[in-house]
């Protein structure tokens, strides 16, 4: 029998910690790079120094009003909204994927995004709404759908399997609602609804970021309080109980957090596709077993969102694509690369 010394296990743990730190640092650096690009790039060229000066203009006083407007009212709000919504989607995705023990079970697969979308399309096509009221409708749709799924899945407690199956059934039904509304509407309304469904940061205003940030700040304490519960829940309900996790209440709380994050982000930018879906698997593969990867998933989400938005704005010279068109492609390409890379080396480390 090999006797393992305290030092050895501490070394093993420190190696994993430092790997986790390297991943986090790498993601943060990439984010910083993307942020810099987002502040510097644009149709109206602004020298880097002027951008920095403008950023401090609320303190130092304005030097150039039009530059200040571009930096503070156009680029900064868009950047902040991308970071916040991306992080929210990423967190929501990894919470559901871990909780339901299925990497496919992100909110945009198990019906929550569909709830938001169906509600929004209803608001646009039937009620003729636009703007903030559509966002509120989408938020309500997401929360109501999640509540319905949870209640329908409840029978002496909730099992991951039941939530997933009832979630996809709900998703199918809500997709049918959307399709039905699409075939019954005039083309102009369909186009409007379609634009909302794809999701975009084109209309980002400073208020959006402030509202979303406030909501996230309200939800985060709950997430921090419950996130350790994922450690147990991941090992199956029995083991979770055995380790002293309060299974039902922890799961309900985490689902609530996950739904709220997805719903807030969707209300802000629309159901931008696949950010929630790809962030978790990407973070986990980068971490290579060195932890849950929850904060890393938030970083990946923010990075995917921001990089996609940059590509959407600047890839084609003539048109600005909606962000949602690009996130799918960008996030997916990242994931495919990881799948291939992890296959070659055995595992990502």
């Amino acid at each position, binding site marked *: 029998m090999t*006797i393992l010394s*305290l030092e050895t296990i*501490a070394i093993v743990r420190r190696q994993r910690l430092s790997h986790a730190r390297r991943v986090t640092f790498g993601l943060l650096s990439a984010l910083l790079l993307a942020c810099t690009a987002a502040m510097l790039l644009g149709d109206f060229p602004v020298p880097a120094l002027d951008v920095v000066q403008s950023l401090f203009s609320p303190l130092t006083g304005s030097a150039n009003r039009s530059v200040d407007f571009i930096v503070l009212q156009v680029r900064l709000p868009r950047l902040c909204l991308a970071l916040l919504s991306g992080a929210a989607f990423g967190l929501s995705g990894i919470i559901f994927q871990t909780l339901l023990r299925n*990497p496919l079970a992100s909110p945009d697969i198990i019906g929550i995004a569909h709830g938001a979308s169906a509600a929004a399309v209803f608001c646009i096509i039937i009620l003729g709404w636009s703007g903030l009221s559509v966002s509120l409708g989408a938020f309500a749709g997401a929360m109501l759908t999640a509540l319905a799924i949870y209640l329908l899945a409840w029978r002496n407690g909730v099992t991951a399997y039941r939530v997933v199956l009832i979630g996809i059934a709900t998703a199918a039904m809500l997709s049918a609602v959307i399709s039905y509304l699409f075939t019954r509407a005039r083309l102009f309304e369909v186009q409007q609804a379609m634009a909302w469904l794809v999701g975009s940061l084109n209309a980002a205003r400073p208020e959006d970021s402030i509202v979303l940030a406030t909501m996230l700040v309200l939800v985060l304490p709950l997430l921090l309080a419950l996130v350790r519960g994922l450690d147990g829940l991941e090992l*199956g309900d029995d083991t979770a109980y055995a380790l002293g996790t309060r299974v039902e209440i922890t799961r309900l709380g985490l689902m609530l957090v996950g739904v709220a994050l997805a719903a807030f982000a969707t209300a802000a930018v629309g159901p931008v596709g696949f950010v929630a879906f790809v962030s978790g698997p990407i973070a986990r593969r980068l971490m290579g*077993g060195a932890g849950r990867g929850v904060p890393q998933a938030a970083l990946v989400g923010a990075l995917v969102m921001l990089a996609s938005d940059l590509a959407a704005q600047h890839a084609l010279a003539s048109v600005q694509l909606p962000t949602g068109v690009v996130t799918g492609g960008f996030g997916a390409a990242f994931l495919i690369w990881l799948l291939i890379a992890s296959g070659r080396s055995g595992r990502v480390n």
Partner: protein
Amino acid sequence: MTRNHQLMAAGLHLGYAEREIVTDLNLTVPAGKLTVIVGANACGKSTLLRGLARLLQPSRGAVYLDGKPIHQMPTREVATLLGVLPQSPIAPEAITVADLVGRGRYPHQGWFRRWTSEDDAAVAQALSATDMAAFADRPVDELSGGQRQRVWIAMALAQQTDLLLLDEPTTFLDINHQVEVLDLLTDLVKTGGRTVVVVLHDLNLACRYADHIVAMKSGTIIAEGQPNEIITEAVVHDVFHLTAHILRDPVSNTPLIIPVGRHHVAKVTAR
């Protein structure tokens, strides 16, 4: 750690949905001893273990930990006193051995209490005890069934509880590792003063290692006590529907069950 916590079941009924599996069962787990539960498949031994471990809510009756109904105690508090190895735990994708074993430290950590050298020590001790030290940084997915089983045992050990309940911990293990695991559990009892309850399949190993053996059939206890006193040919026949001879184990002087089947019976002995 205060020793000798008392675990007992009184008038316990357990079941799933409408099907009752354990009926009106009374059991006092002897403190500071190794208790082994044996019985044929589907006799309710795993269900009883789940009930004792508060993983299953009793339909009637109760399980008491130190005189308090265990299902009404905060589960976190129970987890610092009582560890469980369930039958089919799930290992997350790509998790490493050290990380999984470290999850056993959950009940000892709070919101603000971070990982300490005490936790490291518990993990190191658990890995050494289960002979998994060399695998600390390997992903669990890459291990064999037997190695994986030992990782789960290590996780339960890292929980460092006075009471330890294990459901068939020797399944999937080679004979040498079976003996090692049971030796290890005995160490925990003899030198650590802990109370251990195990569900086992192998009757001979059960007789050798048990301080207290509980024989179950159709959800009730047929016999319990020291193996030397209660394991008789009649009890084996009653529990397993098996004709057997009982000899003395030459190593441990405990009952050694020799099954009599339909073939390869050289000396026909009257029974």
